[in-house]
């Protein structure tokens, strides 16, 4: 164990206001830590460059999940078990519940938070494809007030995002519009459990008389950060699912993704799997259309 606990200041205010005041008083000096499933790994490895930490664990405002007629609002410190156990999420946002079951083990799911998954910003983040497919919105908060950003614009590069130095990710807003959409989510990892995604695809689509009226595709591990597959979406919007459409969607997909060779997998394999996952979704759509 290479971490030295003596070298870190660590405080745990019991309310959000005190946290925001700290972040405002010394912007960039305080590192928020919620469930710690990412930062404590860095700590044990001796690479936690965070001399001052402020705990978000146990601040009620940050863990609440609220349901209104139009949206589900998930506090940034809601854990993945909180998501799995929530009746409305399970019923109307099944891709998010499924993604929550992918996070590490049950022991990790009881501590890892949705906000932490997004702020950590791994290109392989388990929750991202579902949030992209559901058109999620991120709410940020600071002493200066609140603002919202579409989740698809939250990441700006590899492990970088739009958070200002005094800002905290406060909540994730999900519109309650997708219960009638066709939905798909699949992760291909190194093993059946405890696996970082080699490729993951989340998709929602609305068809009318066989024509794709709406489509959202969110991918992990195909770019420096989780992202919508906008060119592939464009190639499918307004189309029926024919062999030609599928071929043109392949071309769009292969043109826009940027998979790499890394410790887990290869660019070539990722390209092939990305095409396979897209096909699996499109063929599922076509099959369901022909049955209805």
């Amino acid at each position, binding site marked *: 164990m290479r971490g030295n606990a003596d070298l870190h200041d660590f405080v745990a205010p019991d309310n959000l206001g005190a946290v925001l005041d700290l972040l405002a008083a010394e912007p960039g000096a305080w590192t928020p830590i919620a469930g710690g499933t990412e930062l404590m*790994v860095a700590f044990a490895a001796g690479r936690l460059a965070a001399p001052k930490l402020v705990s978000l664990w146990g601040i009620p405002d940050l863990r609440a999940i609220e349901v209104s007629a139009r949206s589900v609002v998930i506090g940034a410190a809601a854990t993945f078990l909180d998501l799995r156990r929530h009746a409305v999420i399970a019923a109307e946002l099944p891709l998010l519940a499924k993604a929550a079951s992918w996070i590490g083990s049950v022991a990790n799911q009881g501590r890892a938070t949705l906000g932490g998954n997004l702020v950590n910003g791994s290109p392989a983040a388990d929750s991202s494809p579902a949030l992209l497919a559901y058109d999620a919105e991120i709410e940020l908060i600071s002493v200066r007030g609140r603002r919202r950003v579409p989740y698809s614009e939250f990441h700006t590069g590899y492990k970088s995002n739009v958070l200002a130095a005094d800002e905290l990710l406060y909540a994730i807003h999900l519109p309650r519009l997708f219960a009638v959409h066709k939905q798909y989510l699949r992760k291909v990892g*190194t*093993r059946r*459990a*405890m696996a*970082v995604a080699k490729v993951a695809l989340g998709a929602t689509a609305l068809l009318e008389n066989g024509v794709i009226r709406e489509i959202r595709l969110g991918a992990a591990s195909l770019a420096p950060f989780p992202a919508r597959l906008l060119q592939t979406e464009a190639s499918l919007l307004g189309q029926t699912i024919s*062999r030609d459409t*599928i071929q043109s969607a392949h071309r769009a997909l292969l043109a826009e993704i940027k998979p790499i060779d890394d*410790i887990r997998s290869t660019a070539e*394999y990722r390209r092939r799997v990305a095409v396979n996952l897209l096909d699996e979704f499109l063929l599922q759509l076509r099959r369901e259309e022909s049955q209805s």
Partner: protein
Amino acid sequence: MLHPVLAAGQIEGGIAQGIGYALYEKVVWQDGRMANNQMTNYIMPTAEDVPPIHVSFEEIPFQFGGFGAKGLGELPHDGPAPAVLNAIRDATGVAFNSIPLLPEDLYLGLAAAQPAEETAAR
């Protein structure tokens, strides 16, 4: 069999290790160092990956051993990898000769054997 439970346990463990050796546990080297030396990136099979393992014993006493016994460690580690690769050859017609055989390797090997696959009609 002097301790059937432990003997079977050793075999089951050895087989799980052999399966890991065959299909999961790649060692990634960079500049002479093992790059994936953590439990997060050195991939061993979990309880959701290991299939049912059936063990049965043929008891043939060893005349030089106490109570006719021989030692048993994790010798069953030796068998699974060749067995798995033989099974893959049987299933696909393609022979693979190195382990661990990851999906990435399988994909390249199968693609090389069937170059026309990419243009097949859907």
